[in-house]
């Protein structure tokens, strides 16, 4: 349980940053978009999402601002900072390296 959470956390940061690269979103929007983009495979637990958001905010990779949602309701919107964009590029590169390596291992029969 604990090991899983740890693994998720690393990838969760990447997923959040990637989602926000397309534009500012509120928390629920982020979780919904991740679900949609992963074709319902990745379910983001709220218990992990918000702590991760606060952490990213603390690290200066994302900004938070209160705004109005398309439905006309007050919501907190998160957007990528320039530093976050660099971080995304970095994490994306290392993820590609990692997944390619895993693929190579799995395909070597």
């Amino acid at each position: 349980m604990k090991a899983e959470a740890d693994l998720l956390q690393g990838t969760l940061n990447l997923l959040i940053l990637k989602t926000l690269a397309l534009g500012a979103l509120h928390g629920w929007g982020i979780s919904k978009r991740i679900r949609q983009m992963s074709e319902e495979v990745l379910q983001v637990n709220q218990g992990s999402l918000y702590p991760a958001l606060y952490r990213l905010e603390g690290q200066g990779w994302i900004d938070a601002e209160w705004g109005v949602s398309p439905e006309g309701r007050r919501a907190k919107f998160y957007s990528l900072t320039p530093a976050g964009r660099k971080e995304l590029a970095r994490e994306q590169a290392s993820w590609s390296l990692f997944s390619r390596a895993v693929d190579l291992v799995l395909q070597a029969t």
Partner: protein
Amino acid sequence: MSLIGRARQWLRGMLDRDGVEREMDEEMRFHLEMEIEDRVSSGMNPAEARRTALRDFGGVERFKDEARDVRGIGIMEALGHDVRFTLRTLRKSPGFTAVAVLTLALGIGANTAVFSVVNGTLLRPLPYRDADRVVVLRELDEKRAEMAVTGDNFLDWRAANRTFEAMAVHWNPEFVPMTTILGANSAVRTRVTGVSGEFFRVMGTVPSRGRGFVAEEARKGGRRVMVVSQSFWRSHLGSDPNVLGRVLDWEGDPFEIVGVMPAGFAYPAETDLWVPLERDGIIEGRAAHNYAAVGRLRPGVTVAEAERDLDRITAALKVRHGSAMDAVGARVERLQDVLVGDLRLPLLLLLGASALVLLVACTNLASTSLARGAGREREIAIRASLGASRRRLVRQLLTESLVLSLMGAAAGLGVAVLVLRGLVAVGPRALVATGGIGLDARVLGFALATALATTLLFGLVPAFRGSSGELGEALRSGGRGNAGGHRGRVWGGLVGVEVAMAILLLVGSGLLLRSFRQVLGVDTGFDPRQVLTVDVSLPDSRYPKDPAKAAYYQRLLGDLEQIPGVEAAGLIQHLPLGGMAHNGSFDVEGRGDSHAAGVHPGYRVASAGYFAAMKIPLLRGRLFGPEDHAGTPDVAVINRSLAEKLWPGGDPIGKRVRNLANDSWIYPDRWITIVGVAGDVRHGGLLTEAEPEIYVHYLQRPNGAQSSVLTLRTSVPPSSVVGAARARIAALDPEVPAEFATMSARVVESVADRRFTMLVLGAFAAVALLLAAVGIYGVVSYSVARRAREIGIRLALGAPPGSVRALVQRSAMRTALAGMVAGIVGAILLSRLVGGLLYGVSPTDPATFAAVVVVLTGVAWLASYIPARRTTRVDPIVTMRTE
């Protein structure tokens, strides 16, 4: 950037906690509502959507907690919450709280008090500048035994050493009688000490008013000046701001006050007035050991280097002076070590004992908390299932321990202040003389550290037990179950350890108690019961000549004998156990100096009434009679030891001696006839064998009679005649101050070190016993509560209440017995440590061990009986129904 961001987040969290909380709530609500709407729009009915969304959302509180942790506000926020929660829980169980705080208070209090004493004596430097460089110097004879310092050797040391910044001599306190000072607000009986010019520099202390001695005062025939202590200035000079220049009368001479020492300076002990020693000239010679010497080491010089330096000089002097000098070497010791001296071993023992008490206290807390933790399993299980994280639960339990510890530490500090007062009150003079025993910052720090260590010791065990994986089980069993196998064993072990430590302390204090009774039971040769002693010092200005002093005493003794209830009144110059002792050899008619026979009898100036008052038996001949007075032939009474040494098997009555070393310069060549032999008296101390002694008549040889002790044997309680005696003394001369004490009190005072150690260790043992009893009580009550159902069934099936009670009690007694066996083994192993403090009792004294076992068995039985009795009050119907 990241750091700044974090800091900003944290700062906001700190400053605007409510705002942050509100935002978080709003965000969560928004999320939940969006989720519900989403589910409704995908075809779910609203109620179902809400239900499933909430379910999937998980414990809201829990992840808000985590979010708070990330935001950094978690810690402070949660701490405040935990503390509030703790206080609420503690209020709900006042019994547990009281026991825990009291246990801690006793443990921490005893520790802090003892540590304060150890700190004030062993650890903290004396209140002098660079006190670790102040040393005491002594000469050594060929047997390497210590001797006081001679004038000429001191002068050579001072001239030739390479390791000292300064050196000084002062009068040896053993030879300085109390004296009466006139010219202060009233006549004062105190001690004057002559010190050489460098003395105050050596001690690293300058007068807080005025100055020390200057060169033209510290020389032969210099001006008569005096430095007074702070306490003398306050009590006897009314804190007079214009004290400098005031004149005090000492031995009939006027001395001008030139300085007031700062508070806390009291060296040598009990000295209130310092005068330049060089005024009378330093006594010459290399065999007259008249002085105590102190020195200040140069910076960076060790004690060993200084000792080698003086040793070398002394050895060279010995080669040059041969038989005219008896010293062959020198010893250098730190002043602090000298002052603490014999107290080191008892203090370390007490430190060990207080550590044991603290350990017992912690064990008790651990077991109490364990019991409490067990009782709260259900509560904790429920909170865990509601989503409280394990970390949070552990933190909650730790907070509880911490709050308890701090409360205990606060209460303990109060206890410490009281205990410390008691310690100083019963403590031997040497303890008080080092000055500055009080609670200070270091001691406070120690108390807090103990409290924190205690928290960790007893807080962690239940914290991890309480939150480990047994939650589900706890819920299922409904927090009841039976004796609780593993935990019961751990707990039993803890109580066993307590009992073992209580045994250690009880055996130790039992041995000391028996030793103390043995010491007090020693045959001293006199009977201290029903004796009042009166210390009197005659001011020289009013009684300048010895015969005038003798006449005063003769009249006073006559007056005191008139007091109803006084059976006999006598006079002696140096009372046994009084710390003062003069001795010296004399010429025996037809045989020469007794020095040749190795006999240096104690020299006592006394009256006939002294023997009657102290009930010292006359073995042969007669005491002083009315026919003996100034002008008649001198007579003396000797003690049995002297008679046996000089006239073994013969009759000393009628033999004559003269030229006693102690008064030959006043009464040269005057023969003394021995008229009686009296019983031996232990003069030096209860455990010091009697030495040869010669008593001369105070009317015939009133040498140095200015300071004497009057002894009154009374038929009524001795302290009840103090008022009458004081009135008679004042009526005779109001300018003569007197101090009263009973002889029994002086006997006890002479063994104050022992009494101190015994009392403190005894108190510790009592505390440990009490704590062990509380521990046993706790285990049994807990087990009764846990086994209520089992007991109910047994009773319902017809078991007699007595047998059920015995069943419960039996396991507690088994634990106590195991602890006792362990404790006794430990006590036997450790008994050698106290061996040095024992007298007339073997470290493995069977009687002491037996008594301790009986006491502990009784206490254990009682402590388990009281809660076990509750089993008989268990109502089978009620217990069964609660299931």
